[in-house]
């Protein structure tokens, strides 16, 4: 019969995904545009083009916090979408199994981001 609900864990996963997807939707284009295109082409002075400006930016705790959140959001959206997509094209592992792998990977990547942000410059 029907499993009794509510499944708060899946609810949390989705809520994190929805918030993360909104955040990445709002800020990622700017990062890629400036840091990935305009900066390297020399059209605008992107802060990561020189060590001095990059280190100055990364030394700011607000910047560290902001970037940590954006990295976490990116990896969470990746994990959530990959989990469901792999399930839907018939990749074995089951919803829970794929969840452990994808969310685990996202957690790991976010920890790496946290470590790098905390230890820079």
């Amino acid at each position, binding site marked *: 019969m029907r499993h009794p609900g509510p499944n708060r864990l899946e609810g949390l996963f989705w809520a994190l995904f929805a918030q993360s997807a909104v955040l990445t939707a709002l800020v990622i284009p700017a990062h890629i*545009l400036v840091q990935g295109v305009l900066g390297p082409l020399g059209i605008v002075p992107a802060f990561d083009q020189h060590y001095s400006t990059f280190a100055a930016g990364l030394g700011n705790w607000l910047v560290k916090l902001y970037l940590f959140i954006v990295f976490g959001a990116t990896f969470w959206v990746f994990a959530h979408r990959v989990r469901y997509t792999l399930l839907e094209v018939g990749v074995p592992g089951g919803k829970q199994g794929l969840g452990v792998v994808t969310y685990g990977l996202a957690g790991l990547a976010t920890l790496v*981001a946290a470590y790098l942000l905390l230890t820079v410059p």
Partner: protein
Amino acid sequence: MSARETVGRRETGLGEDAASVASTGGREAAPAHPNRLPTDWWRRNPRYVLYMLREFTAVPIAIWMVWFLIEIGRARGGPAGYRPHQSLAFVIFSVVCLVFAVWHSFTFLRLSGLIVRIPLGERTVPASAIVAGSFGLLIVATVVVGGLLTLGGR
């Protein structure tokens, strides 16, 4: 179980008599064919393909952000070891990722009107208002974040 119930309750169609319906009513196992969508279901119509494209946007975005993380990793080595991403290959890669990122923004913010429900007394804020607000927020965020990234580079 279910096939027996269904067959037992099945209406007698044109050309069938009650006896032929009843004669199949005692079957235990369901010989019904499973009939599931195949795993290449997503190629069957353009809407399914667009859905897959929308979900796929998470991949290039994540890969680009990993590249950003690599840059941050390089900065830990001090000024001597730091090399920003500057090659033409990186720019082309970024353009491709940007297309996917913008597609993610466009599709997700457009859907936000369907997801978010803000009650206003007996009514709710119309979806079009939520979508317009979301796109407005995208423009503001791009200007603010882009502006800070360039101001920080002076």
